[in-house]
């Protein structure tokens, strides 16, 4: 490696350290890192900007706008109350059904938004039932991470992998949703086993839940139908985007613009305020940093050494990626990790062929998404859920989450390993 490459690795390492230790704001660190790559002449500005994956950026923005409007309708509260009543106020059944609602919602909307909507209503249901809300919060955070694994748009790692690998929405659904369904079934069994004894509720308490009128949870019926129409169109377009020749970002942005227009919001600023600009800018910075590493040849070097370390056995490489990214994602942000792994796998696909490295992509997705369940800090959904819980007098400690999260992360990675073994 020449001195420029060494400098690039140092900048990358410093940014990674800043993100992991949370010493400075991670978005600011990523942007500064990208700029340093340009300032030190490692890449030109034009080159650095060209490494930004606009497919990812615009898909994120588009979905954030659609979600921002849909959540105003009260749809998700309606669903939560509906399933609570469907379970006839039985807390264990409520927990399982709410986990499923969370998982399905997370598969299509981003996880943080999902838990921001579903955790408060779940809290309300648990308090009305007179049971400790903490197990519910933990279960929902984990369910959200599992659900996000299932689709191309479910989780940022998948959005990045989808854009970089060229797999379609359908490819993700066909390759990931079977294993995610198995994991969700296992998860239902797991929470029943560990939480069942803590959830005893009187008939009077159950009656309180049955007394809820879910139809009143819908705040804007007209907006709800408009949102469902656009959401439906967008999902159909995602399913067909391979056949239509449209990229997911185009679908999402079109849907966002359409919903903005038909929803009749003249003051779009309030909707645009729902876009998480910190996340968007974090991606921008990361793409430039990793792009610089690719440009200067560091990534090529790394992929060759990874392949030689596993002596070219793809199966070994697959498991190394699954478990490595799983365990790492439990402790560090999975977004920069996946951003780093993507050029590695791309490099390998050039030397080994695209079809040969296909399992590596799925291993990366499963590892990075499911690994987030390992600890309280493994995924944003965990941090946000715990934050709401703490604000309502039920703080969740690192160990409290770890007790359940780490065990289920290992279970889910074992299921994934078996799946990858059978399928490839």
């Amino acid at each position, binding site marked *: 490696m020449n001195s420029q490459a060494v400098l690039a690795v140092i900048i990358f390492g410093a940014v990674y350290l800043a993100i992991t230790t949370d010493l400075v704001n991670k978005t600011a660190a990523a942007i500064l890192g990208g700029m340093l790559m340009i300032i030190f002449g490692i890449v030109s500005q034009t080159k650095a900007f060209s490494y930004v994956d606009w497919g990812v950026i615009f898909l994120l923005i588009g979905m954030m706008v659609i979600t921002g409007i849909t*959540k*105003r*309708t*009260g749809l998700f*509260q309606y669903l939560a*109350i509906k399933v609570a009543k469907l379970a006839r106020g039985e807390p264990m059944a409520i927990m399982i059904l709410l986990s499923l609602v969370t998982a399905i919602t997370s598969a299509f909307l981003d996880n943080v938004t999902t838990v*921001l909507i579903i*955790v*408060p*209503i779940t*809290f*309300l249901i648990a*308090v*009305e039932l*007179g049971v400790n809300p903490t197990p519910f919060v933990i279960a929902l955070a984990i369910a959200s991470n599992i659900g996000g694994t299932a689709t191309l748009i479910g989780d940022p790692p998948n959005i990045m992998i989808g854009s970089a690998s060229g797999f379609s929405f359908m490819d993700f659904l066909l390759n990931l949703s079977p294993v995610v369904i198995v994991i969700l079934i296992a998860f239902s069994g797991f929470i029943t086993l560990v939480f069942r004894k803590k959830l005893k509720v009187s008939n009077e308490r159950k009656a*309180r839940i049955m*007394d*809820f*009128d*879910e*139809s*009143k*949870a*819908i*705040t804007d019926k007209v907006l709800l139908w408009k949102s469902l129409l656009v959401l439906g169109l967008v999902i159909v377009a995602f399913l067909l985007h391979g056949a239509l020749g449209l990229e997911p970002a185009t679908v999402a942005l079109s849907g966002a613009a359409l919903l903005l227009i038909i929803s009749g919001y003249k003051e779009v600023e309030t909707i645009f305020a729902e876009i998480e600009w910190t996340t968007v800018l974090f991606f921008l910075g990361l793409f430039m940093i990793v792009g610089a590493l690719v440009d200067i040849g560091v990534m090529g070097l790394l992929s060759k050494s990874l392949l030689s370390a596993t002596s070219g056995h793809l199966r070994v490489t697959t498991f190394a990626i699954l478990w490595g990214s799983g365990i790492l994602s439990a402790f560090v942000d999975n977004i920069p990790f996946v951003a780093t792994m993507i050029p590695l796998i791309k490099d390998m696909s050039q030397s080994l062929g695209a079809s040969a490295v296909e399992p590596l992509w799925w291993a990366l997705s499963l590892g990075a998404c499911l690994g987030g369940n390992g600890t309280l800090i493994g995924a944003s959904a965990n941090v946000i859920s715990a934050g*709401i819980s703490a*604000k*309502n*007098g039920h703080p969740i400690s690192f160990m409290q989450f770890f007790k359940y999260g780490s065990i289920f992360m290992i279970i889910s990675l074992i299921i994934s390993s078996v799946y990858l073994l059978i399928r490839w």
Partner: protein
Amino acid sequence: MKLAHLLDPRLVLMGKEYSNLDEALHSAVDAAADAYRSTIRRDEALARVMEREALGGTVLPTGVAIPHARLDAFDDLVIVPVVPRSPIQRGPGEPPIRLLWLLLTSKVGSPLYLTSLAAIASIAKDEGFLASLLNVDTPARFVSLVEEAGYEIKKGLRVEDIMARDVVSIRDNATLKDLIDIMYTRKLRYLPVVDDTGRLIGELGILDLISAGIPDYALRLTSLDFLDELAPMEELLARENEISVRSIMKPAVDPLSPSSSVFDAALRMTKRRKRHFPVTEGGRLVGVVSSMDILSKVLRS
């Protein structure tokens, strides 16, 4: 407001010899008329000053003259101090004039006029300060000396002037039941919370009391129309003997001090949309000022 801030060094006349009071009055009026060319008419000002002089009684026993006049079509207050090189001699038995202050104001008198007169009169009574004032060598020094002496002509209302001092407060370890009882029986909408040493540690408005039964998670929902009752609200009523004031109080954010201006209190009420502010001195609660105090003691006093 300080008297010195009404003075302009360019309108402090010093170092000239005057053979009589009229001569000094002429130069003082000239100076004022020159400086306020568009608003002070020299002839009118001089005539009014002379009319007032004819009535007598504008020279204080310490040799300070305060000639003054109210002018038509003038809406201001201008003060011209004159320090003659040597005292202006007058008739036998009358003290020579060592210092002269000409005051020109509007027909009805500026709100600052009478208080300025009072401040100048009190300078005249302070022989020590008067001596040093007569000793200065430049107009600028004259003004800064008056400023340093701190003569005030208008004192704004302070929080201590309008606040309620016999404040009902509640201890942090009191129960919700105590709180509700006090608020109900004494018809209070606001209570400061103190610890055992009387230090202010929090506050409670009647709205805080009511919203104590509505938890954070409920506020995060887009709508609560789907239910009619909430467990935490019922619990609040059922457990009013156990819930402590400390657990539902709000931390007291920037309390006022007795010397804060009433304007400051009004500003904070506006900014924070809060009607009551605790007043503390060294951390101890000494009073409460409310928007009603401002209404009844300032706006309609």
